Structure formats: C-alpha cells, structure tokens
C-alpha cells in the first residue's frame, strides 16, 4: 500500500471508540479497507481507461496517479478567476467546473467502488456484521472521494490564501464540501435515472456511454471556452445580473462563500446564500431517504447477476429486420472467412464496451473539431469556397485527411479486447489464409467508421462548392483507404479482438505507425499541390485505387506464419 493510502487509513480509523460503540469489528473493518485500497491502487483510473495504455506495466500506485491528475485539473480551474467582474461570478464558474469534472470522474469510478460484485462472494459468506460492512463501504467512499477532491481543490485554496486571505480560503473549503455533496446527489440521481429506463444488466454499458459523452463535453469546453472569452470579453461578466441565475445551484454555493467570508451580500445574493446553505442538507436528506434505498434494491439485482434468461431480450430478430451488415458483407467481401471477419468485427465494434470507450470519444472530438472549424471559417463566403482559393483547398483537404483519424483509431483498436482469450476460435477451424479474416475486419472498420464521414463530406461539398469538388473527394477517399490498408499491412498482423489491451506496443510498431503517419502527411501535401490540376487528380485517384486493391490482395494473402509471429513477438 502506498503512503497516501496509509495516511488516509490511519485518519479514518482514528475514531475507533465511536466505531466500536456502533458494533463494528475493528479488525475486520481494517482488513476490508486495506484490501479495497490495495485493489483501488491496481485498477486503472478513468483517465487511464479511456486512453490506450502503451506500457505493459501492471497498474500499481494508481491512486497517486489519480491524485496527481486531480491536482493538475485543479490548476486548470484557476482560470475561472480571470473571468467575471467579481468573485461570485468567478467562483460560480470555478464551482461549475469543479462539479462537472468531479461528477465525470466519480460517475465511472463509483460503480466499482459502490458495487463490487465480488463482495457478494467474498465478504458476505464470512461472519461480518452489517454495521462493519456499512461502515467499511462509507469509509471507502469517503477515502475515494477525498483522494480526488483534496488535490483538486488545492490550487484554488492556495490562490485564495495568496490573493484574498485565509478566511476566504476557509469559507472556500467548506463550499468545496458543499459542491462534493451536491455532486454525489447528482451522481445518485443519474444512476437512478439510468436504472429507471434500463435493466441493471445494461447499466454498465449506459455508464460507459455517459463517460464517452463527458469526455467529449470536456474536450469541447476546453476548445470553446478560451475562444468565447476572446470573443465576448468575459472579463466584465457579472453573473448576479443574469436573469434566472437564481435557479443555478452552483451560483448559490458561490453566494454562500461570499456570505461566510464577508457577511456582506446583495439581496439577490442573499437568496442564493439561503438556498446554498440548505443545499447540502437537502441533498443528504434526499440521498438517504429516497435514493439510497432505491439504489440498494436495484444494486442487489445487479450484483446477484440475476435474470439470466428472463430479462435478456433477443438482440435482433434477424428474420424481421433488415440486416444491413449482412448485405454489406455480401457486397464487399469475397470469401466465407473474409465475410466472417467482416460481420464479426461489425458486430463486435457495436457491442464491445472497451472498444466503444476508446473509439467513440474520438468521433466526438472530431465532431467538436469540425464545429470549431466551421465557427472559424464563418468569415469565408461561398464565393470564396467555389473559387478554389487556398483557404477552401485547405478546408477540403483537412476535412478529408483529418477525419481519417477515426479510421486509423478504429483500425488500430479493433485488435484489442478484454475477451482476447476467446480468440481460440480463429485457430481451431481449417482457415487457409488468416489474412482474409483480418481483411474482413479492416473492411468493416472502413465501412463503418470512414465511409459515412466521406458521404457527409461529399454532400457538404456538393451543396457548398458544387460537383467540381468530386474528383478531389474521390482522390482523398482512395488515398485514405490506401493509408488505412497500409496500416493494416505493415502493422501487426492480428485478428480482430484477439489481443489484450495491456500488451506492450513494441517500439517497432510505433515506428511503423509513425511511418504511416508520415506517409499520410506527404500524401495530403501532394494532394494539396495537385488540387486544381484535374487530370492529375483523376490519374492520382486511379493509381490510388490500384494501390489499395493490391494491398488488399496482400492482406488477404497473409499467411499463418506472419500472424503467429505477430502474437509471439510480445
């Protein structure tokens, strides 16, 4: 156990007498907490989850990583103090960010902290009384939340001590507590909302969608906020003057801060203060009275893993519904094993949670990026676009080549799965050319994650610029396909969903990826220069198709030897 956990453990176990009087078995309580904290230390945190881990290292000391991350995020909040003409406005923004990030972090962590399914098998059969179990859970949650909240608020505290005074900082610490309580109420409400609309079985996957949305919103806010400040000059903003601000709970908290620190508030701020002071008590009341019991009921369902066949509904009654992946597989694949690789990858990419967590956020980032790009090019008029000016060329080229980011992401992630052990199924049947399965997977990734975007770009291009843009779009499309297939061909020759995420990414493969990146940069540059020379564009597109086709043939012909060596290298 790391020193931080030891300190936390010491602190929460200090009131031994109190626990004992409640009927808690101290030895059990200690060992449960020690075990849980050790396990926390070995579980990758939210931030690490959504990223590809490129170190084969086992996760340990994850706690310290989380705390460091929280501290850094806390630093980012400081920029709230540069907004607004008064502290109430700044702090409203500060607490909004604090609340949002805290909820985002806790919403995914809480499932593993609150409901450890293994408790049912490990702790419940042992002679541990309810009080001990309850206290151990509460203390565990307390430690868990503290580990995020303390470092996150550190920067703010230091700022207030330095720039205002200690009283301001003390009042601020109390408000951090209020915000945390409010965040917990919010998370509970979200959980219950999810459980109301879906089955406990689907809970985890809905949570992962929420994580994806959070990741995208955070990315978007970091992109949009600074721009908004530049545009609207938020330095003079006073939220207290805004209509409807009294309906915003985080404004209440900022008002309460001002009241506690200076005892001097405007009438509107006074209402905010009154509401703010009630907020934590109402939150606790709601959680304890309504949410927790409801939650526990549902959680019991969740952890007992019940409702095996009763609640599970058929995925798709393929007889009734039009099966378009099947149609696509018929159109775009040639052999049974290629078709199998296609359909398998198509379905797994829609259903595998870890794949979605890694790839779907990048789709969101891209959408944000596109929106921002449009915001920036508002000044450009249609006429300019049609004239194929440098600006419009850059726009089209970057639209075509940047969007391929999703494709590269999907293609490099498609080989990973938590269920990698199930990949035995590729080895048992008499598969002559394993390359066909790999090609099928790559085709699925292309059709699912790139073609729709190209379609969108084409429509946008036709509407905004006109049919003249088509050859260039085609050239871009085929170039991207060339790059994507090249990535598969020079990369590790692995079956879809057959590799553990933690496996080392070798330096060799990093080099290969860099090579592919360099190639795509060169191709994009080349495309930029020939953009206006139509015959060259058309010839380029034809050459590109031929090259893609050739590489696809080569992928199809990948032999067992190459595949097996890709796995044994690690």
């Amino acid at each position: 156990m790391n020193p931080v956990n030891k300190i936390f453990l010491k602190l929460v176990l200090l009131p031994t007498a109190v626990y004992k009087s409640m009927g808690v078995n101290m030895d059990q309580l200690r060992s449960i907490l020690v075990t849980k904290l050790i396990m926390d230390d070995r579980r990758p945190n939210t931030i690490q989850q959504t990223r590809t881990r490129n170190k084969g290292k086992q996760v340990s000391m994850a706690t310290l990583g989380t705390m460091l991350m929280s501290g850094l995020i806390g630093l980012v909040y400081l920029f709230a103090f540069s907004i607004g003409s008064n502290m109430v406005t700044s702090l409203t923004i500060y607490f909004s960010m604090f609340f949002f990030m805290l909820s985002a972090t806790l919403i995914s962590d809480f499932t593993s902290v609150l409901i450890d399914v293994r408790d049912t098998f490990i702790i419940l059969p042992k002679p541990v009384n309810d009080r001990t179990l309850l206290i151990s859970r509460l203390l565990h949650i307390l430690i868990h939340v503290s580990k995020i909240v303390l470092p996150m608020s550190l920067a703010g505290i230091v700022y207030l001590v330095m720039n205002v005074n200690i009283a301001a900082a003390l009042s601020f610490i109390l408000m951090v507590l209020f915000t945390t309580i409010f965040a917990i109420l919010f998370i509970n409400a979200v959980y219950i909302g999810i459980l109301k609309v879906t089955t406990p079985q689907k809970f985890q996957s809905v949570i992962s969608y929420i994580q994806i949305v959070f990741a995208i919103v955070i990315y978007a806010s970091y992109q949009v906020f600074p721009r908004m400040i530049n545009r609207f000059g938020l330095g003079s903003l006073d939220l207290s003057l805004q209509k409807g601000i009294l309906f915003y709970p985080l404004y209440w908290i900022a008002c309460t801060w001002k009241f506690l620190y200076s005892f001097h508030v405007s009438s509107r701020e006074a209402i905010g203060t009154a509401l703010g002071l009630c907020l934590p008590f109402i939150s606790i009341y709601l959680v304890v009275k309504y949410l927790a019991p409801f939650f526990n009921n549902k959680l019991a369902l969740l952890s007992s893993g019940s409702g095996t066949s009763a609640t599970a509904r058929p995925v798709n009654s393929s007889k009734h519904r039009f099966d378009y992946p099947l149609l696509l597989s018929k159109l775009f694949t040639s052999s049974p094993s290629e078709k199998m690789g296609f359909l398998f990858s198509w379905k797994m990419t829609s259903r595998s949670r870890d794949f979605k967590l890694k790839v779907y956020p990048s789709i969101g980032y891209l959408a944000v990026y596109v929106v921002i790009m449009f915001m920036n090019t508002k000044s450009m008029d249609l006429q300019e676009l049609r004239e194929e000016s440098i600006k419009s060329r850059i726009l089209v080229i970057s639209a075509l080549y940047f969007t391929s980011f999703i494709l590269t992401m999907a293609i490099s992630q498609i080989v990973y799965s938590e269920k990698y052990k199930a990949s035995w199924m590729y080895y048992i049947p008499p598969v002559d050319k394993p390359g066909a399965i790999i090609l099928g997977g790559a085709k699925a990734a292309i059709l699912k994650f790139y073609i729709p975007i190209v379609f969108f770009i084409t429509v946008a291009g036709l509407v905004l610029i006109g049919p003249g843009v088509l050859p260039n779009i085609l050239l871009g499309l085929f170039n991207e396909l060339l790059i994507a297939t090249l990535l598969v061909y020079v990369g590790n020759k692995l079956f879809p969903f057959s590799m553990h995420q933690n496996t080392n990414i070798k330096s060799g493969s990093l080099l290969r990826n860099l090579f592919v990146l360099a190639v795509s940069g060169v191709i994009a540059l080349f495309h930029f220069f020939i953009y206006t020379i139509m015959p060259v564009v058309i010839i380029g597109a034809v050459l590109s198709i031929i090259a893609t086709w050739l590489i696809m043939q080569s992928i199809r012909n990948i032999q067992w030897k190459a595949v097996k060596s890709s796995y044994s290298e690690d």
Partner: protein
Amino acid sequence: MEPVISIRNLFKNFGNKQVLKDINLEVYSGQVIGYIGPNGAGKSTTVKILCGLLTDYEGEVKVKGFDVKKDTLEVKKIIGYVPEMAELYDVLTPKEFLSFMGALYGINEQVCSERIQKILSAFSLADNIDQRMDSFSKGMKQKVLIASGLLHNPDVIILDEPLSGLDANSVIIIKEMISRLARDGKTIFYCSHMMDVVEKVSDRIVLIDEGRIIANGSFEELKVQQGNKSLEQIFANLTSKDSLASTADELIKALEN
C-alpha cells in the same frame, strides 16, 4: 485397419522443459479414448498438437493419414474440438458465434443455419438462440461450445472436460451422444479429471504422467493389471508418489493450533 489417430515418438519441449516424452498411441475408428492424467502431465499439449495448434514438435502425428504438421488444414477439417472452459465473445448470440465458426469451416450457410437451429433445440437452447451469451450460465455456454465442436460433423471429436457446468440431465445427454457418435464410427478423444465418467464412457483408457504414457488399455485390462479397483484408485496408485492419505493428514494438521 488403418488407425484414425496415430502418434509416433512424439516429443515436445517448452524451452528447456520437456513436456511430452516419447508418446506412442494409435486410435481406431469408433473408439472412445479416455485420456487422463494429473495436472501438468501433458494432456492439453497432446490435444493441442492433435488439433494442429502446436506444430513445433518432434515425431510423427497423423490423423486419418494426414500429417498434422504438413496438412494442418486437412486435419483441422476432420477434427471437432471442444476446448476446456473456453472463453467466448459473449456479446455475440449463439447463432452469430456458431455461424462464424461454420463459415470458417466452410459449411454451406443454409445447412449451417439449419444445423445450429437443430443442435441448439436439442440442447433446449432454442429460445436463447438470439440472446447475447453474456447473460448465459456456465452450462449454457458449455452447450454452445459443444455445438461449435460438432457443427461440421467431424470424424474425430476431441472433448476437453466437456461436462463442466452441465446439469445432470445434460450430462446424461452428452454421455449418450458420445456412445452414439462412436457407434456411427466417429473417434472420440475424451480428456477429463472425472474418473467415474471416464470409466463409463471410454473403450480404452490412456493414462499419462510427466509426459509419458504409463497405462493404456480398457478398464477391464487395467483392473486385471492393477487389481480390482476403481479407476480413481488405479489413477492414484499410478500417478502419486506420496501416499494421498498422508497428504490429507498434513492438511488436517495445518489447521490444528
């Protein structure tokens, strides 16, 4: 008669460790071989070699005359393999998973989908055919696994602990199925730790320990050699160096204060 499986002078090393030391075995059509041995004896290695999953061995392994090393694909076509406690991509439905396997075996789609329907109905999984397997019990998953090994109507069926997780009725079905398949001339290679089952289903029992075959014959023959005991007792006599009773003693002593 030509043996269906013929293993001659089979050696296999993992690094410096020799796990198979001169295995020789011939299995004929219609036989049910009970392949038993303690943990780490080399059972799964033998099975993996037979299925063409491990090809860097020494010696000669043939299935229906095909050399496993040279004609791996032909061998894979002949063999149906039900791995032990295998993981499944459980976000798929049984129908999807089995169709994929069928496609890899090159079975005609129409035929394949009919077979899936029939096999799963026989296993009383007809209602679950379009459900994702993540909600399945261990036994249901095991049935899907068994189905995946039978789907292409193989001549040689390798079952590795096929009864794990199955309920009593399903166990009876599988046992009955094994003897029917053998009667139809299929060869069955049955690996298990459950001695009572092996004793009942096998025509011949092959006992392997530390990479060597230490007993090979029908249960009756083994009884003649080892005295009239149960297979469990014969197994213990042949494979354990220390007295098992004294090990149990040690365990009990460990609990004393």
